[in-house]
Structures are given as structure tokens and as C-alpha cells.
């Protein structure tokens, strides 16, 4: 099974496009902190957008248009025309704007949208941003939007199920279970690692959480060793194998699923030929492979990743082996080794061993998800892809502090996934001037 031939080849951009500024709020549980309770969508989007403009050394006057992304405006905010709900917050009154929603794929599509607008020649400077309140929702038409509520697990489950097509797919009663484990199961069977997969997944949980705990932008600042101490246990391993981390499927435990959060992020793009006017450290977008498969396709994430990667590899002539840092949506934590393997960042069939050997960690030779990933760092659905971009740009600049990788990053790949289901493979090139 393969859908590669269904996806037409990518063509080069009409002009090169580079990222000149990024901004992000931390991921937060806004409802749970008296200093953040009541923050609204417009404010968070505005803070991220303004930070991105400051980072690029521009003001709102310089921006030609903006793109607004949110996982599903009906899920969190009951918004129509969401780009207008943020319109007055960051100095862009009357400028053109659009909104898009591809669930957890939104943050990756956000970059593709902005790059396409600039590559077309119609606009020079485009701001693209995302904001999601996945933890603290506003479902109310009677009060101002600072009056929010916790999103419950039941509400969230309804949202996930509602991302399936309602002609046939939803009524097959299988979409969620297939999406979570079908790819992993095929991998386990193909590589005959039934007896090892539990160790692999637990190792992944332990060090992803350590990455997140070191990251000031994360919602989790404790490690699983800290959790073990709280429960009077010997080690993270003991905690992760205890009743506090129940098995939820054939392979996955609670620690292998996303942790919901609130947050925003934004980026500024411009033509590559103009980029050094604004910054000494531009990052060029070389290409974005994109494939979508609807939820009724078993192991769709594998097949769409294969097709998206195939196209960006054909366009750029670069393979996963040329890439120095890999960031991926991992709301199912095993994607931290499945996706890099599919994209040839690590050798086929060896991803599980790379996890056990620590080679995908921040200190390893093939780092993946240095921020800690969705299951530990947090997941504000449509915005997380834009946070992946923020993390990647900061790593390329060498500004990730304790989580900074040990080698220079000339090329980075971001593998996005989400939306039942968009998959995008983006290749970025570090164009920083010598010594910057």
C-alpha cells in the first residue's frame, strides 16, 4: 500500500522565502494560575505576533498581510471568521488576513500558507500565527471571553470524534483506536519487537519528560523521577510501569498521549533576497511536502508521511540523512521514532534501538523533539506545529539553553501531522551569516 503516486510532484517556489522572525508564548494552563486565568485568544495571538515582529526588527506597518490559524474555532471559542477576532490586537487594522483550521496540522499549514503568499509575489512580508486554548475553553455567548472554563476529557473526546467525516467514517467506530496504534502495530510486527516495545516506549517517556522539565516554555517542570519520589517509588521506570500510568491500548500507556495546553506562536516570512535587510540569521524554507489522508485509512499517518517526505526530497534533493535536527508532532509519543525513520533521518528498522541507545535525545547524534514533545511539553492543538517551528529556529540559532543540541544545524526537518489528517514535511536551511 502506498499513496505516493496520488500526490503530484512539488514545483520550486517562484521566489525563495525565508523566516526572519519568530515569537511564542509559553504553553500554559491558563485557568490554573491566577496570573494567567482569563487570558483571551486575541491577547495570546497578539503577544506572539508582536514578539515575532520585534524579533524580525519590524513593526506592524511593515507587514502586508497576516494568516491566523486555530485547530477548530468551533471547538474552543465558538468563533466565526476567527482572523477578525484577533484583528485589533497587534496593529494591523484594515490589513488583509485569512483564517485556516486543520486541527493539529494547523501550525504546519500556517507556514505553508505564508510562504505561498510571499512566493507568489503578491506580498513581501507576511505574519503567520496560531493560537489555541485547548485547556481553558470559552463556550459561551453571554459573557466576555476572559470568563473561561476547563475543557473536560468528555468534551475533548467529542471534539476528536467530530474530526471524522460523518458520511461513513465516524460510523465505523474505529477512527481513534486506528489512528493511535495502527502504524505502531505494523512497525512492531514488521520489526519483530513485541518483547521490546514496552521498554522503548517507557524510555521515550522518561527522557521526553526530562527535556520538557528543562524547558521554561513547557507545562511540565517535573521529571518522572520527581513523580516517583512524590509517590515514594524508587525510579521513573517504576512510576511509568505503575498503576499511575495505565495501559490504554495494545501498546500505549497514558504517558504516550498528549497533554492539553493553551498558547500561541507566530512567524514572519519575506522573500529570501530581502531577508538580510532584517536579520543576520534568516532561515530559508526550501520546500514543504504535503499529503492528506482521511481518517478511514488505516495507518494513514505512515502513508501520508511517506508521500509528503517523498515530494520534499524530490524537490530539494535533500534526504533525511542531510538533516541535523528533526522535530515532529508526537501526540502519540512513538512518532518520535516512527516519523524520523519514515523520513530517512535514521535507518529503517532501527528507530526503536536509537531510542534505547539515547541517540534521539538532545545529547544524542540524531536529536528529535528537543522541546519535550506534545506528551510532556504540552499540546495546544493547532498551535503546536508553530511551536515546533519556534523550537527549531531557536535551535538553529543556538539559543536553546540546557536543551541545545551539541552540533551545528545547517538543515532541519519538521514533520507535521494532524487534522484527520494533514501531514507536512518541511525542510529548513540555516542561512545565518558567518559567526552569527
Amino acid at each position, binding site marked *: 500500500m502506498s499513496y505516493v503516486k496520488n500526490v503530484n510532484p512539488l514545483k520550486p517556489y517562484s521566489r525563495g522565502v525565508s523566516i526572519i522572525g519568530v515569537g511564542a508564548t509559553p504553553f500554559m494552563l491558563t485557568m490554573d494560575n491566577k496570573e494567567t486565568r482569563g487570558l483571551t485568544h486575541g491577547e495570546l495571538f497578539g503577544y506572539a505576533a508582536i514578539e515575532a515582529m520585534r524579533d524580525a526588527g519590524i513593526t506592524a506597518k511593515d507587514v502586508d498581510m497576516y494568516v491566523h490559524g486555530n485547530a477548530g474555532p468551533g471547538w474552543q471559542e465558538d468563533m466565526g471568521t476567527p482572523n477578525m477576532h484577533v484583528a485589533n490586537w497587534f496593529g494591523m487594522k484594515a490589513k488583509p488576513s485569512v483564517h485556516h483550521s486543520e486541527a493539529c496540522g494547523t501550525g504546519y499549514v500556517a507556514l505553508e500558507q505564508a510562504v505561498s503568499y510571499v512566493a507568489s509575489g503578491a506580498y513581501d512580508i507576511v505574519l503567520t500565527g496560531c493560537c489555541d486554548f485547548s485547556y481553558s475553553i470559552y463556550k459561551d455567548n453571554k459573557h466576555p471571553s476572559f470568563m473561561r472554563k476547563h475543557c473536560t476529557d468528555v468534551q475533548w473526546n467529542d471534539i476528536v470524534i467530530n474530526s471524522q467525516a460523518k458520511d461513513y467514517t465516524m460510523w465505523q*467506530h474505529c477512527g481513534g483506536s486506528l489512528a*493511535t496504534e495502527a502504524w505502531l502495530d505494523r512497525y512492531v510486527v514488521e520489526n519483530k519487537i513485541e518483547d521490546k516495545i514496552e521498554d522503548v516506549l517507557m524510555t521515550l517517556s522518561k527522557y521526553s519528560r526530562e527535556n520538557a522539565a528543562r524547558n521554561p516554555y513547557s507545562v511540565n517542570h517535573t521529571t518522572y523521577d520527581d513523580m516517583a519520589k512524590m509517590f515514594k517509588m524508587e525510579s521513573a521506570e517504576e512510576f511509568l510501569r505503575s498503576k499511575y500510568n495505565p495501559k490504554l*491500548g495494545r501498546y500505549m500507556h497514558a504517558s504516550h498521549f498528549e497533554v492539553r495546553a493553551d498558547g500561541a506562536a507566530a512567524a514572519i516570512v519575506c522573500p529570501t533576497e530581502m531577508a538580510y535587510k532584517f536579520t543576520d540569521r534568516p532561515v530559508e524554507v526550501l520546500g514543504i511536502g504535503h499529503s492528506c489522508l482521511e481518517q478511514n*485509512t*488505516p495507518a494513514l499517518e505512515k502513508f501520508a508521511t511517506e508521500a509528503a517526505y517523498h515530494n520534499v526530497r524530490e524537490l530539494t534533493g535533500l534526504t533525511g540523512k542531510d538533516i541535523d535536527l528533526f522535530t515532529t508532532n508526537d501526540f502519540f509519543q512513538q512518532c518520535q521514532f516512527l516519523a524520523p525513520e519514515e523520513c530517512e533521518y535514521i535507518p529503517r528498522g532501527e528507530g526503536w534501538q536509537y531510542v534505547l541507545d539515547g541517540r534521539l535525545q538532545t545529547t544524542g547524534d540524531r536529536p528529535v523533539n528537543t522541546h519535550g514533545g506534545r506528551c510532556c511539553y504540552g499540546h495546544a492543538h493547532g498551535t503546536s506545529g508553530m511551536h515546533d517551528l519556534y523550537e527549531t529556529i531557536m535551535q538553529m540559532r543556538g539559543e536553546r539553553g540546557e536543551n541545545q543540541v551539541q552540533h551545528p544545524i545547517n538543515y532541519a526537518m519538521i514533520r507535521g501531522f494532524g487534522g484527520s489528517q494533514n501531514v507536512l514535511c518541511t525542510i529548513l536551511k540555516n542561512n545565518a551569516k558567518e559567526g552569527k
Partner: protein
Amino acid sequence: MLKCERIVKTFYDALEEGKILARRCSECGHIEYPPYLACNACGNLDTEWVELPEKVMCNQVLPVSAMFMDPDFKANVGDYAIAAIQPENAFEVGSVLLHVSPEEVDEIRAKLPAPVKPVIVQEDGYKNVHWELA
């Protein structure tokens, strides 16, 4: 003027008569199951009604994730497992395998791929197609 035939309704209406419909591509013969308008294999825009091919395989079976339990569905059909189903000349689709308890999942996985047959099930106000081992 463009005539808009009701594909989804025709599919569900046929189930009431005990018939399972699909669409066949007039160009490459690919089967669209469940039925859609155009061919997702070759992109041809014309497909025609056919009955579901007799040969259907189950390629993958998984237990239902605790994250996505569906108590109403289970009350209606009893034990079931998640399955990847592939009718001949069609793409693989997600569905469920009926009459499989969580304890029986390993035994069935050892036999895969295995032929399956459709079961028409009464759901809330409509009939639907699920599967059991042939």
C-alpha cells in the same frame, strides 16, 4: 443542468434491502468502498454502482483503545475489535470485527490476513456494515 444523485443515501438505503453497494471506476476498475463519486486510484471522474466484491480480507486487528471506548456501540453489537479491511481491488479501510473479545485478539492476529464476510447491523435509525471472520 447538473444532476446530483444521492450516493450516501443510496448506500444506506440499499443496506435496508440487504445489499452492500460500492462504486467501480469505469477507467481502471478500482473499487470505491464505501462509495464515493470519482476514482481515488486513478483520478477518473466516472464511477458506476456495483455490489461489494465477494473477496474481502482483514489485514490488521487491534483491541479498542480505552481512550475511544464506545459503550453504546458495544451494548448493541457485543464484543468487537478494531480492524483494517480490504475488499478486492479497493483500498484498505478502517472498520470493526464483531464477536471478538479482548482475550481473542492475539489468536486472530496470528491468522492474518484472513478472509472476512460482511454483517449488516441495525444501529440507531439506520443499518451499517461491519465484519466477522469468514
